[in-house]
């Protein structure tokens, strides 16, 4: 699981209010080396929840991100490269994600998180 994905994930169990952000307890992290994609980082960072990314990175042992996006750095290539790295290259291979509202846990094994819910846990819908 990439931190890019984590930044968008939430627990959608019926009893969660926002279910966001999921708390990461990693047991294995793998850092890959993918090519820097300038256009993608610039596009996707507009939709990144920055405080959540900072927190997620620190839960994975990366404490280099500034607490707010430095306004003068949004076109700074070395900053954007570091951001690309955190969003796309840092992978949680195994561990647990926890819903902040309900404590429901979602386990990660071989990089794949298990979001399977029982019918009783799902949101009600009118049909």
């Amino acid at each position, binding site marked *: 699981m990439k931190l890019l994905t984590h930044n968008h994930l939430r627990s959608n169990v019926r009893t969660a209010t926002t279910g966001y952000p999921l708390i990461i307890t990693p047991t294995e992290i793998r850092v890959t080396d993918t090519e820097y994609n300038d256009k993608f980082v610039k596009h*996707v960072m507009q939709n990144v929840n920055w405080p959540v990314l900072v927190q997620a990175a620190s839960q994975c042992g990366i404490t280099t991100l500034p607490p707010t996006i430095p306004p003068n750095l949004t076109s700074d290539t070395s900053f954007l490269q570091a951001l690309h790295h955190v969003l796309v290259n840092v992978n949680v291979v195994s561990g647990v994600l926890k819903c902040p509202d309900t404590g429901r846990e979602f386990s990660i094994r071989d990089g794949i998180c298990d*979001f399977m819910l029982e019918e009783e846990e799902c949101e009600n819908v009118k049909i």
Partner: protein
Amino acid sequence: MSRPELTGAAANFYNDTEARKYDTNSRMIGIQAEITQRALELLQLDDSFPNFILDVGCGSGLSGKVLEEAGHYWCGLDVSRDMLNVASERETSTKGDLAHHDMGTGLPFRAASFDGMISISALQWLCYSNSSKQVPKRRLVRFFSALYGVLKRGARAVLQFYPETPEQAVLISECAAKVGFAGGVVVDYPNSTKAKKHYLVLSFDRGYSTPKGLQSAAQAGVRVDSSGSSKRVKVVKKKGKGKTKEWIEHKKEVQRKKGFENVRKDTKFTGRKRKDKF
């Protein structure tokens, strides 16, 4: 054409053996790629930058591979852990991420996460119930309502699916409309039983009208999303073709073997088309 949906749960059908067969079948690879390309075309993304796409029912990642080749990053969900395992072994993938998830339970993302969504050959599974708790209509509405939330405003979703009956296509469209989506079903190659493909195209834009389906079926592939190992095979009767010479000779042979003596001899007239008489 066999319908894997009639055999039970998708996670059981797409087990390890089937997942590996699926991922290495060259006909499958070709056709899933062709469908995904068509879905991308219908999605009408802003291609001036790489998009972040949701792929629901991503399977072994054949559809994701096409997204990736088009430059996009993607997140894939699937109910079969075996399919996902095969997908995660794909070493060339650097832009995709995977999660184990049943689309009938909603979607585990915050609002406005994705620039677009595709689903290739998966949606029809939601029309079947595999336990007393699973109500197809409830699962469909829950899925579409979640989808409505996780897409960015202005984004579109394209879902290619294989309806078993016209009623299924109607049910699916109605559930999508119920949660507020505009759009409809685009049917490519409507006159070919084999190549016919249904794409549910969804948009937030009330004024959106779906494009026309493709017509010539010369190049289109048939359904190959199962390797034919399903048990409960549905026999589809060919209509209107008449009885062929081979069929008649086969029938006669069977009758002879059963010991009937009045079976007519096979001649050059057997199974010939007679003049139409009015």
